[in-house]
């Protein structure tokens, strides 16, 4: 049966940030849409929905010698099972535990052919507790990685902090991930169309709405801390060289590079070449066409740790024609 790909929204966020509140809000609002929900704890959900599935966050390591190639096998199984149902739904929501690394969830959508055929990762939405975020950063890498992986961030509980504190938290989020859209919220209150079915993960689609999404900004390099780096050029990219370089780079540094995204200009091609990676996994496809007279740019973004700006810049420039 030819079916449209069902959008999947991943909800992450540290313990107590407001994920379950957001989920309950999504499920109880009158939006006329039907969502399947994959959660860890049944009990916390206040809404009765027979499309709620309990998952155990079963991560497995792929047998390819790559320690960061970890995948949520339970999601593959559950998505396959959901597709056997007669009732189709408008979207799937996946709630991760507060201490979960979003990497394996994202990588699941790069790995499994059945999952890729039936669903698409729409966005990783991270709920951040404005009051406790800076403290959580000290306690481990989870809070930082959840922000690093995000396409959309709900900066929640803004009523519990002063204006100055809020600026500080937002500045920190920005330093980790300059490319996520931040919405300031209280009690996870947000218009649902700001977070659902946005195609935020899929650069091809986001570019149609926000062509300047990957604008060049000021580069940071914080060593052990997660940071974003971007490079751009008005020269076209040699796809063969690019794939070779990126493949080798991710093989070597994929543990540190959490996400990589690129929108590339290819000689003679009418469309943008859109690339994205999660750790060592990568995917590329043609995106939206360049408009007549539009300035063609090649842009590349890395979000990760220990990013060697000089080395990455040289690598990128070597791929340019």
């Amino acid at each position: 049966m030819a079916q449209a790909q069902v959008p999947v929204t991943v909800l992450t966020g540290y313990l107590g940030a407001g994920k379950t509140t957001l989920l309950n809000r999504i499920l109880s609002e009158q939006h006329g849409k039907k969502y399947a929900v994959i959660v860890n704890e049944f009990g916390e959900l206040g809404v009765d929905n027979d499309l709620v599935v309990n998952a155990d966050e079963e991560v497995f390591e792929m047998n390819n010698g790559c320690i960061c190639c970890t995948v949520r096998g339970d999601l593959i199984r559950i998505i396959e099972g959901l597709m056997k149902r007669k009732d189709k739904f408008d979207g799937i929501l996946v709630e991760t535990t507060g201490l979960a690394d979003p990497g394996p969830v994202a990588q699941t959508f790069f790995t499994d052919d059945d999952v890729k055929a039936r669903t698409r990762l729409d966005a990783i939405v991270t709920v951040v507790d404005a009051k406790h975020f800076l403290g959580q950063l000290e306690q481990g890498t989870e809070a930082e990685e959840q922000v690093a992986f995000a396409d959309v961030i709900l900066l929640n509980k803004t009523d519990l902090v002063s204006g100055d504190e809020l600026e500080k938290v937002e500045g920190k989020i920005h330093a980790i991930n300059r490319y996520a859209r931040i919405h300031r919220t209280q009690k996870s209150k947000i218009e649902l169309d700001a977070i659902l079915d946005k195609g935020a993960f899929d650069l091809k689609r986001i570019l149609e709405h926000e062509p300047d999404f990957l604008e060049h900004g000021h580069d940071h390099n914080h060593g052990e801390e997660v940071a974003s780096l971007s490079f751009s050029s008005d020269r076209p990219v040699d796809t063969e060289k690019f794939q070779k370089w990126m493949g080798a780079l991710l093989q070597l540094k994929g543990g540190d590079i959490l996400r990589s995204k690129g929108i590339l200009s290819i000689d003679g091609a009418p469309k943008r070449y859109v690339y994205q990676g999660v750790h060592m996994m990568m995917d590329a496809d043609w995106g939206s066409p360049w408009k007549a007279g539009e300035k063609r740019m090649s842009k590349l973004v890395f979000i990760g740790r220990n990013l060697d700006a000089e080395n990455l810049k040289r690598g990128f420039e070597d791929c340019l024609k």
Partner: protein
Amino acid sequence: MKLDLGNPAWRNTLPFTRSVPSDAPVAACAFSRDGTTVGFGLGDGQVRLLPADPKPPATAAAEPQHKGAVLSLIGDPTTDGFVSGGDDGRLLRIALDGGAVEIVNQKGKWIDKLAAHRATGAIAASVGKMALLVDKTGATREFGPHQSTVTSVDFSKDGSRIGAAHYDGITVWSIGAVTLPPRSFKWRGSHVALKWSTDGKFIATGTQENDIHVWRIAQATDMRMQGYPAKVKSLSWSADARWLYTSSQPVFTAWPFAGKGPEGKPPLQFGDEGAGLMTVIAAHPTAEYVAGGYDSGEVQVGDIKSKRSAVIRMVDGNAVTCLAWSPDGASLAAGTDNGDMLVIDLKR
């Protein structure tokens, strides 16, 4: 029964097939123990029963037995009815009038894989991280927990053990009166299908990483077969245990297990190239034949002796999701992901 695949007249005529539409994907199909009835488990929670003889008219739809989707269905080894598992966490015995009796109810868990052992009347099911055993009296026992959700279960030939697939390998449980410690066989990664060989010597699994893994149980040695373009979700051993048939190729693919086994040998691939990739494969219950269903809707039947195959259902664009032979091997049941329930009569 003989399938005359070398005869052009046989090859050029599609067998008599009854196709009954439904509006939910077919997850599983099976024949009853006596071969008179075919059951289809549907994505709307129904188990639909059709007479195996394809000539009489089909029976009407019944009330859904499961609340969500039916995920698995087998012939009941103790009656001429069926046993179904669903995403409502229920394991049901389905009588021939469609009536259901609940064996297990574990809300929040999925019962997505089932196996039956004819001689002992036992049923095995995957329920979360546990392998569940239902004996012929209806008493249940659980084995586990395993390190991750059990993805497939199967009985040994003599019914004294069950094998359970999960992350990083398989576990073999002794289920007889004397409880022996479980044996684990390790291979990293996610194992998604498991079939015990018809001679009881081997267990084969399909893995998430497009290969298959086979263990010699007595020797605890293992082998890996690679080269598939997709996950191998369907495995089937020939009745004489000489061949392991695998899905996920455009032609019938069989690994040789007679003599010294398949190490260092290529698989035997035979028959006409089908449309697309095989999604389901089912060895004939007694003879040298095998049936394969494709992601295009095509169904072929093959003969490993003559290395011929013939199309017995044409491409329609809807993937074949399940196949089951009748006990006498004279008819074949199939289901598709757009809800077609098929009974194909191979008698000529």
